[in-house]
């Protein structure tokens, strides 16, 4: 079955659009599989997402259940990662916290990547005053330090996950627009785009169907490399009390509350720290691997 798919996908004489598309995807996958670091990253990410999704099944306790008699307990059989200052099980909170943290990251990416791509590709393709306007707006957002702007936004709205997502998204899109614009500028003048122009296609069609898809690989790479910094911004907002609100478990917020007893009960802060470190590292590994596979300029 799998070997059938393999021969079908790798067939140089593809017989249908579907076969050609799968052949292309399969080759990318094969190239990615040959990169051990990228595979490690991918495995960690898939595992983390799976753990977060399955949190209700896997978590031994309710993440909000307090057991005040058993505060700040050391790791034990009953609580493998110990308990926090309200006697809540850290493992359960970590698993549920993954849902919040990873959910925030994914929401940010879903908002940011298409926005950046659209702004960048349109600015780059149309040029002139469209470009000037869009890029000046981008510059304004780019000029603010990400965390400060996010803080201001959250403060203006109300602290919470949604505002944190919105705040991070608003500060994260400018680099994507810049990348997409730079890519578009190199693609815009090529003969293959001129050839599409000669089919009578409208500029919007050219941007959406021919230019933008070519910007996607470098954006994907940038997204994966950016993931870790988005996680850290999300965690920082949580740490500063501007992100997810207690008692909702969020990795950054968990570290924030644990900071008071970080010297005596280090394990309370340690596990969310390790979780953030691992997932950031995993996204970086995957991003590096994807850059090698997807970026046409590398080959």
């Amino acid at each position, binding site marked *: 079955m799998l070997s059938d798919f393999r021969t079908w996908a790798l067939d140089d004489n593809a017989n249908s659009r579907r076969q050609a598309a799968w052949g292309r995807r399969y080759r990318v996958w094969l190239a990615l599989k040959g990169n051990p670091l990228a595979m490690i990253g991918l495995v960690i990410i898939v595992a983390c997402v799976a753990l977060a999704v399955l949190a209700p099944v896997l978590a031994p306790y309710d993440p909000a259940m307090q057991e005040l008699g058993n505060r700040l307990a050391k790791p034990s059989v009953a609580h493998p990662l110990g308990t926090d200052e309200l006697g809540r099980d850290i493992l359960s909170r970590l698993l549920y916290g993954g849902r919040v943290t990873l959910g925030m990251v994914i929401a940010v990416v879903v908002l940011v990547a298409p926005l950046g791509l659209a702004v960048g590709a349109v600015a780059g393709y149309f040029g002139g005053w469209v470009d000037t306007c869009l890029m000046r707006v981008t510059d304004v957002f780019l000029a603010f330090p990400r965390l400060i702007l996010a803080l201001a936004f959250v403060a203006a709205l109300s602290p919470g996950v949604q505002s944190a997502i919105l705040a991070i998204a608003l500060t994260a899109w400018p680099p994507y627009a810049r990348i997409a614009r730079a890519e578009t500028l190199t693609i815009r003048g090529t003969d293959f*785009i001129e050839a599409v122009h000669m089919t009578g296609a409208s500029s919007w069609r050219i941007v959406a169907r021919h230019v933008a898809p*070519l910007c996607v690989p470098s954006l994907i790479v940038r997204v994966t490399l950016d993931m870790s910094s988005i996680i850290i911004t999300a965690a920082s907002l949580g740490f500063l009390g501007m992100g997810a609100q207690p008692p909702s478990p969020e990795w950054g917020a968990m570290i924030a509350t644990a900071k008071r007893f970080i010297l005596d009960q280090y394990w309370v802060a340690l596990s969310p720290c390790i979780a953030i470190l691992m997932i950031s590292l995993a996204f970086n590994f995957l991003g590096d691997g994807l850059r090698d596979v997807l970026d046409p300029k590398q080959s």
Partner: protein
Amino acid sequence: MNTMIDVAGLRIAFGASEVVKGVDFNVARGACFGIVGESGSGKSTVLRALAGLNRDWSGRIAFEGTPVGLKRSGAFYTKVQMVFQDPFGSLHPAQTIDRILSEFLLVNRTGDIDGRVNRALAEVALPPSVRFRFPHQLSGGQRQRVAIARALIAEPEVLLLDEPTSALDVSVQAEVLNLLADLRRRLGLTYVMVSHNLAVIAHLCEHMGVMQHGEMVEQLSTRTLREGGATHPHTRDLAALSLSLETVDAPAV
């Protein structure tokens, strides 16, 4: 004479520098007009202005007696198509041949995409098996055939050829030149071909214009050229150079 293309007083400037300084020529229906010149002579710029890919021109360009403006309509491109120089750069790297060929049909909402794509491939003597391949899986000659097929799928009357064979090996060049000659005969196409290679122009075209420093310094028929009737020194230079390099036993230039 049934004039297909009429160009008069064509001037093209990039910023302050004028690269085409008043070019006039006309091409009869079904004829092949060659523009020959060295790099920087402005020959490709003229062709791109004809194709509507350059918006910085002034003067008159008319197809079938109707002057065209700076911006071309979709209908214009059902009549005029272009084949680019570099077959590696003129095909979208992330699209299959099928996608590249069907774009015109999708944009213009014509039916029977399958049939027309297959017919276009057959027209340029490519096997149907290349249809779902990506450009990087094809050889240079095959890619240039795909580029020609893409132009033909619009069923145009005029084909603008920008150095269509200069990026190809000589043996492949012969195949592509034969294909172009054959297509013109069968489909009654009008060609305007730009090349730095006088022999290639002379092979395909009956008339040619010689460009130098943005001006068309001479227009003559291929027969006149062969009979040594060129009057402008630059044309004579190009012809002498071409002759000296195409014979293997001639003394060194």
